[in-house]
């Protein structure tokens, strides 16, 4: 008797569902199994800093309507002024995807046991430099010995320690000191070599007038150690997703692929139209609340340099095992002033995945988008203050 009641109930439910389905014009259901889900149309992307050309691809995708093209009604790009740690915001569920440097996330993963996946390695190369005055003889990491080396800290210092470890140097033989985000420490010779990103602080120093000549400082005035050429090079800007959610929520996995398609298209646009992309980002930045970006010329320089880091010959955003192994080896060998390693053990295998970016690239290729190749740099003439 009870049995038949349950069967009747089941039948009734099935019929109601069928009627509801038939009545519904959209293919959405309540998400009972993997094939059926309500597609996500509203997502949030967390950046690791304020709007600038470093994040041009995302602002271009917004501006050119690529997010709408791939089914998002509303994509919010959330800047950070240092108040929001991207991976923490992602873990807390405040945002759906986050842009962050690989070594910083590796540190968070080991320290807190969270599970995050790098679904697109946007920057294929490291953009970190150590800049010193020409004639001071600091042309390689080995020359750091006995010198005062500037670094920003906040997790930006691990490439320095990894490169030093590979050269047998530690913090007893090199004095590592915290520098601010201006380049005054080097200009005033408070440090022997200052940390700089190719796309930001390196340009800032070249936007300063040399009092000796009355002209801007020239690259020839400095020696530059590029960490990309050292064993300390680590992967930087990557798009991170929540590992568990990728596995359990098909709508999220689907959104990841669509999101990557739009983002890839944004970066392709930036590759082919660096001037426009820099202008789009600059306009987004000056209209954003309190971003105070450096001027338009600086943004164009940044766009040019960022493109060089992204378009390294292979497909956009693919995770390269060799680069990952190098990053992890560096993170395990790097020892900071307090004698600590960035990480002690290998991260879980789920730390990066090419599944989503490969799917996105394949679909884009079908649509006729060229998603790989190298970038032909343009000539950017810097001006005082980058304005």
């Amino acid at each position, binding site marked *: 008797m009870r049995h038949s009641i349950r069967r009747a109930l089941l039948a009734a439910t099935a019929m109601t569902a069928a009627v509801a389905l038939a009545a519904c014009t959209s293919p959405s259901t309540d998400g009972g199994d993997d094939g059926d889900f309500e597609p996500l149309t509203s997502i949030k992307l967390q950046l690791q800093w304020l709007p600038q050309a470093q994040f041009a691809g995302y602002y271009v995708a917004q501006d050119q309507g690529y997010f709408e093209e791939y089914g998002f009604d509303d994509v919010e790009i959330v800047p950070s002024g240092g*108040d929001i740690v991207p991976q923490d915001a992602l873990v807390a569920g405040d945002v759906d995807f986050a842009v962050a440097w690989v070594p910083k996330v590796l540190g968070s993963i080991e320290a807190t046991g969270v599970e995050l996946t790098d679904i697109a390695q946007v920057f294929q190369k490291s953009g970190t430099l150590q800049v010193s005055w020409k004639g001071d003889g600091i042309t390689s990491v080995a020359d750091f010995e006995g010198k005062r080396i500037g670094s920003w800290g906040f997790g930006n210092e691990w490439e320095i320690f990894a490169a030093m470890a590979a050269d047998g140097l530690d913090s007893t033989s090199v004095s590592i000191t915290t520098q601010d*985000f201006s380049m005054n420490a080097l200009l005033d010779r*408070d440090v022997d070599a200052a940390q700089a990103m190719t796309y930001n602080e390196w340009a800032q*120093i070249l936007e300063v007038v040399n009092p000796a000549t009355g002209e801007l400082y020239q690259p020839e005035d400095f020696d530059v150690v590029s960490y990309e050429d050292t064993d300390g090079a680590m992967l930087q800007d990557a798009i991170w997703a929540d590992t568990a959610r990728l596995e359990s929520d098909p709508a999220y996995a689907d959104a990841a692929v669509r999101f990557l398609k739009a983002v890839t298209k944004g970066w392709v646009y930036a590759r082919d139209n660096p001037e426009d992309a820099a202008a789009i980002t600059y*306009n987004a930045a000056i209209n954003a609340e309190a971003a105070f970006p450096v*001027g338009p010329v600086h943004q164009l320089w940044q766009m040019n340099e960022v493109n060089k880091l992204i378009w390294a010959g292979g497909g956009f955003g693919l995770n390269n095992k060799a680069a990952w192994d190098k990053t992890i080896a560096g993170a395990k060998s790097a020892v900071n002033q307090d004698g600590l390693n960035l990480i002690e053990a290998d991260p879980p295998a789920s730390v990066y995945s090419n599944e989503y970016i490969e799917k996105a690239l394949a679909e884009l290729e079908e649509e006729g988008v060229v998603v790989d190749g190298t970038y032909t740099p343009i000539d950017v003439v810097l001006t*005082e203050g980058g304005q």
Partner: protein
Amino acid sequence: MRSRSRRTSTVVWGVIGVLAVAGLWELYKFLGPAEGVVVGATEGQTGSGVMILPRTHDRAMPHLWDMFARLFQSTSGGDSPILLVSVVQAALLTLGFAAVGWLIGVAVGAVLGLLMQRWRLVEWGVLPWVVVSQTVPLIAFAPVVNAIGNQIDRSGTPWPQWFSVALIASYLAFFPVAVGALRGLGAPDRIHLDLMRSYAAGYWPTLLRLRLPAAVPYLLPALRLAAANAVVGAVVAEVSIGMRGGIGRMLIQLAGQGSSDPAAPWGPTFGSIALGLVAAGSVAILGLVLSNYRRGEATA
């Protein structure tokens, strides 16, 4: 007539003071060594020694007229508004945070002052903690408040980030009010208290008719100090929790670009000075309303 001439001389002296600071700046910039003076430096060791005279080159000390001219150039180049407009917008936002912080601080401080005055035991128990609270470094304390705020926010109750800033501002603001209220409420003469007792007035009438009016000369300077403290607290809080939009964050942001644009960070610096003056000045308006009770106050 006498008061008008006194007011004029106050203004004149104020202007002379500002001009003196400006003159000292330019004089030192003219006379001082461009690279400063360092004593005890070891040859070939960068960063050794102690700098006893600061650098005077244009990156370290821009000319005053450069700072002034910078205020009327666009903040970030291109179509962005002039720096002065950005500074005023940011300063108004910070003023709002500081005002909320001031109100919270005054409320908390006044309640603490009342309780401490009413019961000696509370004074003994609480006053040392009130003093100790001001020795906690704000830059360590601010991120903790922000982190707690974020936790509350995620659990469903909205906690806007600016509220963390206001709360941290109130932490600095409550102290002078609490101490000022304690002193002021205890200020009436014995003879006046005895008079109230002979009228058979209880605690509340005594408080309302005698203690509060007597406390005004103590409270007004305390409120002014609280206003200045609230501004300092709000600016420091913005910097240490990375809250965007206000003057503190703007200062950090422009200072980061200071190598190639050294005059720019002085815009928000002047902005925060003006902010402190406006905040303390607003309390002076309160003083006009209460001028009947200000007889005992020393002019400051």
